[in-house]
């Protein structure tokens, strides 16, 4: 049980990195990026390219990948997302869905359908562990992933709290029009947020490639986990994504101690439970709090009937 708890928390670190970018995009730009998982895989392939073709060390390749992905995010926001943003809810979804398909097939064309991994480039790090009391083993890679997740979120928090662009991002995310009136360039802020989000996606992809195998079509599965972590943790909340990732990871690993089949099911159930609770909370909020909402049918129905009459 304790073992499952620890493994679940560590797994949550990976989900947090993956979800942070998605959450940032939604919180600041109000934009749902369905290609987020595919961008993560693209980041992983860029690291593989750096290691295998350019001969960089894995660490250097990851560090080199981040600005490239950030630039890609900046360009995508400028050329693609910003244009889709003003045209309703559906268009951004369709655009990013299409972008995902384009990314998958581009990666297939460039790298082929062979499964690849970074694990063989980081030596024994991908599978060695520290032995703890009570027969618990802490995998080195999961611990590092978790530490990087926390470090990335702390860095992001510091940036949001203490820098000019951070203040602009916070201002834009809470009220874009008021921010514009105060001299913040919202388009610029959106581009900055997209750059950070896509770089974070690439970082998550790099860790995925160290732990598992990737292929050009592996993105959509990752997107589901990212979405669940975001929803559980609270959309647009930075530390919420870490909490959401941990809750998702723990739910999965505890679920699998119950039955091997429950790994994903438990995660999905927690996600649905939180989503349901959030919807109900929002509903209650609109109707004067929990107590009033519970009495809802009696007070609201007669009025609805009246309105229906001509």
């Amino acid at each position, binding site marked *: 049980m304790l*073992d*499952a708890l620890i493994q679940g928390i560590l797994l949550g670190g990976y989900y947090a990195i993956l979800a942070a970018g998605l959450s940032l995009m939604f919180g600041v730009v109000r934009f749902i990026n369905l290609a987020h998982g595919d961008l993560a895989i693209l980041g992983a392939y860029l690291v593989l390219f750096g290691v295998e073709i350019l001969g960089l060390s894995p660490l250097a390749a990851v560090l080199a990948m981040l600005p490239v992905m950030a630039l890609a995010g900046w360009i995508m926001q400028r050329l693609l997302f910003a244009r889709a943003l003003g045209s309703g809810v559906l268009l951004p979804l369709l655009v990013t869905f299409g972008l995902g398909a384009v990314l998958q097939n581009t990666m297939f064309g460039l790298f082929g*359908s062979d499964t690849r*991994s970074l694990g063989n480039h980081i030596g024994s790090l991908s599978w060695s*562990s520290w032995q703890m009391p009570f027969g618990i083993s802490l*995998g080195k890679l999961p611990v590092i992933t978790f530490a990087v997740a926390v470090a990335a979120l702390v860095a992001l928090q510091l940036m949001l709290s203490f820098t000019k662009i951070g203040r602009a991002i916070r201002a834009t995310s809470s009220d874009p029009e008021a921010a514009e009136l105060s001299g913040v360039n919202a388009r610029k802020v959106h581009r900055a947020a997209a750059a950070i989000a896509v770089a974070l996606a690439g970082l998550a992809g790099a860790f995925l490639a160290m732990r598992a*195998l990737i292929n050009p079509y592996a993105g959509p599965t990752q997107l589901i986990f990212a979405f669940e972590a975001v929803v559980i943790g609270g959309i647009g909340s930075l530390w919420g994504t870490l909490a959401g990732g941990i809750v998702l990871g723990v739910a*999965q*690993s505890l679920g699998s101690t119950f039955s*091997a089949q429950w790994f994903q099911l438990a995660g999905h159930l927690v996600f649905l439970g939180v989503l349901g609770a959030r919807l109900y909370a929002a509903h209650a909020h609109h109707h004067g709090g929990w107590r009033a909402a519970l009495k809802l049918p009696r007070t609201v129905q007669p009025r609805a009937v009246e309105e229906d009459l001509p």
Partner: protein
Amino acid sequence: MSTDKTRTNTNTFTRRDFVRLAGGAAAILGVPATARPAIAQGDDVIRVGFIGSRSGPLGVFGEGDPFLVDKFNANMADGVQVGDKRYGIQLILGDTQSDPVRASQVAKDMINSDHVDMMLTSATPENVNPVADACEAAGVPCLSTTAPWESFYFGRGAKPGQPSPFKWTYHFCFGVGNFATLYADQWSLVETNRKVGVLLPNDADGNAIRGLLLPELEKAGFTIVDPGPYENGTADFSTQINAFKQEGCEIFNTFPFPPDFPVFWRQAAQKGFAQQAKIVQMAKAGLFAAELEAMGALGFGLHAGAYWHKDFPFTSSSTGLTCNEIAAGYEASVKKQWNQQVGANASLLDAAIAGLATSDNPKDKAALAAALSTLKAETAVGLVDFTSGPVPNCATTGLVGVQWVKAAQGPWEFDLPIVSNADHAAVPLTGKMTPYVLQG
């Protein structure tokens, strides 16, 4: 023309491809008119559709096809002799894009627009079953390989003990019985406590193996530890690994969704199970060297089964190559280490030609289907014999036990000796099985 079809479905079209294509076209045009009457006259050309995954997630299964088709076309340029008549052969290639829906559509298009006389397909039930279904519905003879015969036969609605519902579709491949024979032998080659931890997902293959293979293994004297079905894409296997450790399993067997295996095995090394296992038998995963290379040092010593191997002592009659030549030719043309599927696809072409040659009239679909039902042919994977199959419409071919070991010399990182031939006695052993040791 077949060369056009070949090229429209590949993704990358390099300058070299263009030169080769242009050269091929020039060569065909350069042949004197008398040498190609078969190609000129529609009635004397047998049109054979060949559908496989040439792009998408399963694209790796079709990577050797352009090479095989080149060799096939060169070797079969004179056509095939059927009775006292000589027919030309035209291969028409189709790409399923690794999508069962697309596979069905490609097959229907080929049947309706290209009027194929015969269909070939291979590699995974995702390709084989929809193509075979389309052929069965349209009354086109279809020959297929490389999907467990149970998933071809029972997976398409046949019932045990009842007559076969299929008239047009024929399949040769290994099945559960082959795994039982192979494992009983291969797992006796290394001293263990005969306790087997199995990792079987909740999918068609996993459940079929759980229902059919595990009882056979128990009969053979192995103790099975099954922590239960899990969903593909699981990211944490602590529960299963802890169960295997507690039970002291020294043999491990899995039929996973291939990308899940390295996740499991790295975690098994973190938690000390990889240090305890002596036999690590993969199926479905570990078919391709690229998967092993992605595992790095953890991959050395893993065990697997193989449906084709470059050291098979057979010849592919349709391409005119020995198994060693197929592997070498594949490596030279694709620039990757040989894989099992290129040999299996060669065997499909071999069996197709043998079927055509023994039919009374290859343009008569019923006669061709009848010929396939009693086909007995030497192919690149060995003897394919539909007269002694487990059920009508199916023939079994053997599996050999192999072990991925560190190559003694380049250019490839891994070598794959044959360590068990109990299920395929015609194949000689090329190595001795050793226990799995972490990092080789």
